[in-house]
């Protein structure tokens, strides 16, 4: 039995060594890219005059967001980019979300009209602010976030659509920075993802983060995760044109391309990842130059869960969304016609991201049983654990270096704090995440996820490039 346990532990170890090496490769690319990004460049310098740049519609789905919606919309309206409009989609809120918007912005009703490009739950009414045409509010029956985004896509009027959350805050120059890839590659760029940063303890003033701060416990852990996930790997995936997720908290899309592929899928939990994968899946064969980029310096601040129960719910949803998306687009796996997204990022997601929690839990179980059965094997177990922990720490260090190259945002004290928490990560945070994510996988497999198996494949659109109006330049 000891022999079998040792061999099993080595298999798990080899799996994680491979996973870590792959991720380290991505981090190395990201680090290389970030070291020579032009530091301190002001994006406004290169901006074209208003008549020669694409318009942006910011779509904000809101469901029971009465506490934050007015502040978020006010902050968005303060952006000095033009042409800009803000479309708030009240997704059947049962609280005072609409009433507060009405009170704050003096809304007037407009005809809803017909001919919406995407099917959604029934729209109740459309409103425009008397204080400026830049704000429009649409009220609809509740249909979920993806459905609300689809309604927003139908109402939005500009060529580019930025999606964000009602509880997120875009940095004042985030839109301009996310626009850069579109300006550079106007006929190829389809979507651009921004960087999401944890804002929990930060000091806000007039809708912007003045002093970024880092909390402790799960807040610090999530800050590390976001730094690794965004700055650590997405820069590399973007370089390889294999970015498979544009975060729903902040992403900029070509509206007609998104509509052309059928919009967001309401029946999936990870609608942002699924839509990004579908863009690759549906567009790359007919639009070989199409690219999905990542703008590391386009920042959106978000409130991360600060309680374990909220974090657990979020991670279960993310895991289910990930597995659903991989399942829906499994046809891309290993296919050359999809470029790096088919050959590298899809296999990475399927083989590592999706199933690593199961391996991780398995690894813990094997190690514990091995130590009980054969206590003298502890050096072996300790060495493997140490290698895994040090690999993880290496990733954290590289990601923090990328962050230092890019932002220099945190104080010395906060950076030290972050490093301290990173040393403790493997002791409690990682096992917890593995447990939650595995439970998400199990729930999906035993059919306890509502809606599973009813994904309308036939509804997936096929956007030919000629259906998309060229971006204004």
């Amino acid at each position, binding site marked *: 039995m000891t022999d079998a346990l040792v061999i099993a532990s080595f298999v798990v170890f080899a799996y994680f060594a491979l996973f870590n090496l792959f991720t380290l490769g991505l981090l190395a690319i990201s680090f290389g890219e970030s070291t020579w990004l032009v530091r301190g460049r002001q994006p406004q310098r290169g901006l074209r005059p208003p008549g*020669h740049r694409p318009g942006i519609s910011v779509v904000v789905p809101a469901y029971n967001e009465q506490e934050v919606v007015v502040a978020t919309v006010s902050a968005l309206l303060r952006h000095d980019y033009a042409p800009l409009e803000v479309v708030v989609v009240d997704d059947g809120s049962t609280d005072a979300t609409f009433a507060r918007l009405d009170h704050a912005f003096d809304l007037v009703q407009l005809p809803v009209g017909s001919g919406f490009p995407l099917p959604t739950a029934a729209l109740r009414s459309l409103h425009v602010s008397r204080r400026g045409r830049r704000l429009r509010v649409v009220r609809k029956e509740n249909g979920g976030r993806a459905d609300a985004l689809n309604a927003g896509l139908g109402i939005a009027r500009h060529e580019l659509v930025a999606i964000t959350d009602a509880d997120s805050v875009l940095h004042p120059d985030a839109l301009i920075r996310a626009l850069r890839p579109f300006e550079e590659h106007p006929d190829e760029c389809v979507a651009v993802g921004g960087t999401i940063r944890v804002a929990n303890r930060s000091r806000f003033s007039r809708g912007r983060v003045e002093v970024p701060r880092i909390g402790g416990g799960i807040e610090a852990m999530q800050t590390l995760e976001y730094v690794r996930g965004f700055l650590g790997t997405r820069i590399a995936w973007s370089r390889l044109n294999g970015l498979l997720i544009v975060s729903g908290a902040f992403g900029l899309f070509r509206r007609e391309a998104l509509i052309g592929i059928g919009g967001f899928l309401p029946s999936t939990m990870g609608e942002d990842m699924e839509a990004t994968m579908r863009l690759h899946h549906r567009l790359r064969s007919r639009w070989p130059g199409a690219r999905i980029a990542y703008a590391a310096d386009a920042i959106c601040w978000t409130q991360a869960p600060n309680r374990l129960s909220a974090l657990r719910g979020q991670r279960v949803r993310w895991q289910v969304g990930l597995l659903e998306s991989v399942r829906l687009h499994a046809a891309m796996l290993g296919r050359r016609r999809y470029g790096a997204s088919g050959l590298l990022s899809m296999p990475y997601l399927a083989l590592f991201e999706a199933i690593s929690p199961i391996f991780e839990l398995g690894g813990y179980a094997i190690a514990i049983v091995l130590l009980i059965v054969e206590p003298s094997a502890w050096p072996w177990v300790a060495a493997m654990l140490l290698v895994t922990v040090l690999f993880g720490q290496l990733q954290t260090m590289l990601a923090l270096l990328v962050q230092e190259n890019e932002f220099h945002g945190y104080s010395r004290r906060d950076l030290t704090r972050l490093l301290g928490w990173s040393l403790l990560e493997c002791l409690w945070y990682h096992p917890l995440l593995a447990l939650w994510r595995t439970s998400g996988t199990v729930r999906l497999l035993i059919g306890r996820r509502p809606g599973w198996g009813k994904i309308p494949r036939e509804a997936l659109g096929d956007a030919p490039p000629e259906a998309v109006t060229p971006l204004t330049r």
Partner: protein
Amino acid sequence: VAGVPPDLPLRDLFEPLVWVVAGLAAVNLALFVALVVAREQWVVHRRLRERIGTRLAPVIERLLQGGDTQRAAEELRPVIAGLGPQARPVAAWLVLDGLREADAGTRDVVRQVLAESGAVELAERATRRWMPWRRALACELLGTIGTEGSVDVLVWRLRDRRAEVRSAAARALGMLGHPVAASPLTELFLRQEGVPTGVAYDVLSRLGEAGADAFRQGLESPRVSVRVTSCFGIAAHAETVARGQAVALLEQRLRTEEDPRVRAGAASAMRSLRGDAAPGALLEAVHDPVPAVRRSAAKALAAFDDPAAVAALGPLTSDEDRETALRAAESLLALSDGKRGGEPARRTLLGSDAWTVESARATARLTA
């Protein structure tokens, strides 16, 4: 190794594993040191910028106030001379950044002083640095403080091995606006190599007639993106000169082009060519089978105060494509203030029961 039971399988792997642990620990330590160094370097750099900024602020203020520009610019000499060679380009950047609002004459005088202080020469030398981001930054700096002599240095950098350096060099050439840059940039634009199409467009648009020539050639390119960009380039150039020729070129593209993206691009670009006679091809484009082209045409027609544009837009307010219909209604509303198209547009709007017209009017009332 001694602690591992002798009969344990894979025992031979234990020793290499220990070395891996040691190696990883060493790399982690090295990265920690690198992190601390990066942080401190940034702090030092920030302080340097603040120090230089404080010393330059009074001079910049005097330059912005006007008066004896030459005398104020001369005050820069001792300040810049007192800085180390690494700090001079930073100072030059700060000066010109602070003078963004100043008139062109003041900026030229200051640029001359900066060139004589050696800042430009240092920046030119920095375009050959090993680190790509330093080369890119030097190129960008030359775009702001460079002189005619910097053009050759920047043209050479268009062949840099890193795309971002090439883009920075191209943008800098656009800022300097010297026609010598047109030839290599045209070549890169037409081949879609080296510099992203959008960057080439920005730069060529700043080069006047030389840039317009590139766009004329681009209309015949086999590459769709180059043709689309050329449509916009032709129109942007025609905002100042050669409007008639631009209209003719875009009309020809609208009528003969097979790719709907180029047709839509040509229609969109015509929006810049305001006038009182809508181009015939644009009026025909409202019947295009591809919605993207109709959308572009519906929006562009608002720029032409012409009863023919009103007649073309009327039926479009009920187009099956929601966006086309909305844009047509908005264009009609925009035309209703015109001298020639105003009266027929008002009549069309009054006689319409399309929801798009109602929506556009309600929105316009709010703005009024």
